[in-house]
């Protein structure tokens, strides 16, 4: 077992590979009472096209999520009931890049762990199971459709990422959900639910040597057919956005919402790593638009907007700077954002304050066993490993380094959008 030191919080995470090659990450805290276990598959909703041993495959949108739904069955047994009978709660979620199965337990840890590994690997699917679940998933799909904000968000994503499969809703499109078959589900289970494409996290109060033994015992007999190299084919996203500006009017919303998006590609940043770009831009955006900035104070205190949030995100190689606004006059806020974007700065004091805030969050993360799991999962999915790189980059950040990175952002590659209520007079007409 290897120890990974997390300097920012003075914590240790232990890791080893099971006989099947499944990576395991453990964080032990004897002050806690409970244990959180997650078995994560590095396969999410965006992987609809893939190649295996030179053969191309594709599945309908929403297949990863559909599989997650019916996974809680093994040989006509409801797995959530089995977990319940062991005194623990189970759940699962699908996101763009991963599907995660989780249990929260404080008793029968060995049995719970065995069941978690067994049921996720198990490939029991029947046509009846698949058909029964369809109605439920379609209801889930309809759940957000009455919300105009949801539709507004969807149109923005479709425009921001016109080619990437990250634009597709995790649940899939309704017509595709209707077409998913047992073969689609079995295919992705066979290809992706394999130890080399998964990892296990265990956080909380447990004996790590004891659970290591359980994992090794459980995994040593497991055999997987060699299927060759598998690759998810993600379409190459272009820098262009589908729409320049748009306005949606709705009779189902009461507030006016605005979005201002700037899109860049990682290649614009001249060899800088994802982490450097992300840490630098987040610091800069926080210093200039965050709640402690003069910009925010002006916009909020003077009543120009009720809410104004800025963020920086990564989708594969796409870097986005997002502004979400609630304001009666979002165009006015867009002008102010633009003005500020052309006059950005950051001081040493700003960086040291952001660092302090990071230390606070990093210390408090370890109060919560879920948050530690979440931290491990996002590190593995985003960076492929657990380390303190982001914290170390932040510590070494200087105003010059930040501004050099910011100079690479093409401010002209932007999109604005507005969702506003239809005025009553308009409805009468």
């Amino acid at each position, binding site marked *: 077992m290897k120890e990974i030191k997390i300097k920012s919080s003075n914590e240790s995470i232990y890791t080893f590979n099971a006989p099947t090659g499944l990576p395991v990450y453990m964080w032990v805290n004897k*002050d*806690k*009472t*409970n244990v959180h276990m997650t078995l994560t598959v590095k396969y999410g909703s965006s992987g609809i096209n893939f190649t295996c041993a030179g053969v191309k495959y594709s599945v309908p949108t929403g297949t990863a999520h559909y599989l997650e739904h019916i996974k809680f069955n093994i040989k006509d047994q*409801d797995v*959530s*009931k089995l977990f*319940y*009978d062991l*005194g623990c*709660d189970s759940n699962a979620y699908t996101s763009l890049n991963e599907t995660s199965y989780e249990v*929260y*337990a*404080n*008793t029968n840890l060995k049995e719970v762990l065995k069941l978690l590994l067994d049921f996720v690997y198990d490939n029991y699917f029947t046509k009846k199971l698949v058909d*029964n679940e*369809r*109605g*439920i*998933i379609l*209801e*889930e799909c*309809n*759940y957000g*459709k*009455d*919300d*105009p*904000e949801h539709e507004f968000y969807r149109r923005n994503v479709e425009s921001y990422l016109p080619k990437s499969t990250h634009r597709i809703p995790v649940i899939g499109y*309704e017509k595709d959900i209707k077409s998913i078959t047992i073969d689609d589900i079995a295919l992705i289970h066979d290809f992706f639910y394999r130890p080399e494409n998964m990892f296990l996290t265990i956080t*909380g109060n447990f004996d790590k040597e004891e659970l290591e033994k359980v994992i090794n015992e459980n995994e040593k007999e497991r055999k997987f057919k060699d299927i060759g190299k598998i690759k998810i084919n993600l379409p190459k996203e272009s820098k262009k956005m589908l729409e320049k500006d748009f306005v949606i009017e709705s*009779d*189902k*919303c*009461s*507030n006016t919402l605005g979005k201002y998006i700037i899109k860049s590609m990682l290649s614009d940043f001249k060899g800088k790593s994802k982490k450097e770009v992300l840490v630098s831009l987040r610091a800069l955006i926080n210093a200039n638009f965050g*709640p*402690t*900035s*003069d910009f925010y*104070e002006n916009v*909020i*205190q*003077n*009543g120009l907007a*009720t*809410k104004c949030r800025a963020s920086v995100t990564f989708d594969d190689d796409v870097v986005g700077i997002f502004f979400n606004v*609630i304001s009666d006059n979002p165009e006015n806020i867009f002008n102010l954002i633009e003005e500020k974007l052309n006059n950005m700065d950051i001081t040493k004091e700003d960086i040291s*304050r952001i660092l*302090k*805030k990071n*230390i*606070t*969050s990093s*210390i*408090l993360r*370890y*109060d*919560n*066993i879920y948050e530690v799991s979440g931290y491990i999962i996002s590190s593995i999915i985003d960076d492929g490993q657990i380390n303190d790189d982001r914290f170390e980059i932040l510590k070494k950040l200087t105003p010059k380094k930040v501004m050099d990175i910011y100079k690479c952002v093409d401010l002209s590659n932007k999109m604005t959008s507005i969702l506003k209520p239809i005025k009553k007079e308009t409805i009468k007409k």
Partner: protein
Amino acid sequence: MKYKTIKEKNYNLQLIDVPNFRSCHFALIFRDDFDPKKAVCYALLSDMITDANKDLPSSKYVLRKMEDNYILNFYGSFSNVGNKMQTYIVCDYVDPRYIREDNYLDNVYKFIFDMLKKPLVKNNVFDEKLFNLAKRRLLTDLKSCKDDNNFLSINKALKLFAPSSPTSFHLFDMIDFIENLKCEDMYKYYEELIKEHVDIFITGGLNNGKEEKLIKKYFPFKSTKKLDRNEVINHNYRMIPIKKVEKSKFKQSTIVTIYNVNNLSMFEREFVASYYLNILNTANLNSKLYQYLRNENSLCYTINSYPIDRSNILIIKVTVKAGEERKALKLIKKAFSDMKNKISNEEFVRAYYAYESSLKGMVDSIGAINRLYMNMYYGGFSNYDIKKKEFKKVTIDDIYSLAKKVKLNTVYVLKGDINERNQD
């Protein structure tokens, strides 16, 4: 977990010592009997007095101060609980054991009470910008409630159930009053607020009485008003349930049913009710409601239950396919009826383990520990050690007996539009 109550002239202090966390949770609660106009003003004040003060004239300065003091959260909030209303001032800060800075804890407590005692006021009038900002924020949130069919359905069902009771009150009902509220009106409400009954809860690793001394040093108000702790409102049973169906443009239909659960003993409220709810709904896919509506009939994705302990009611909300309302209502009725005499041993054992597991889960969450002690203090519930013993005494017959006290009072259906649905 060590628990200590200290009664001071101006406040009651509850110290909950749990040293296995890295954060500490501070909650100061101003309490008063329910009053709708005061409710609005206290909700606004909870925002205004945590957003700025005389030394820190906008949120920018407050947030910078928080960052300097390793404070994660500092905010105000408001809620009405039974026949009382509570205005909260909350602060989450890093346990002093993890911070090597002189006077760290002193600075945190000075910050909290400075915010409360030095509001941004000139000549007894709050700063106009600050007031307008809080008002705008509140109105934006309340107006967005209009767009949420889940909120609307529950709100309408509660209005049908008890139109003029605090149980059905929501700040949403006061939009016109808020719009007409003047900045000059606020200071008198601030003066009233600081005289209300005050309870303070501190949960986390405590420092040999240091917190107690700091509160004594910095608590600024003469809050001598004393209030009883009884928050319960009783609603009468209805011989024939009231029912209302309204049409909407939404793609799905939302069904809300409200049940009276009167005359429960403390044992039933605290222990049996959890078993009951688990078997009915909170065991998710294994519960009766999920079995009937989702697993067997694919009618819905989620089913929510909201037990309102202080009003002795239970609310069930389910969003189903438009056109399937009758079928769904029939199945809901069947689930409730089965709770009176058809509980399997398997369901019972599962509920037992769920209770045991939630008790164990509680001790890993500082928020849950804080809520446990608030429920002890205000609701008369047992402490952790008693809970651990007493929940084991529940029997299936206890659940049947409670189920017979659950009576349907109100059915509200917000009917979805089948044509809207077919457009996709």
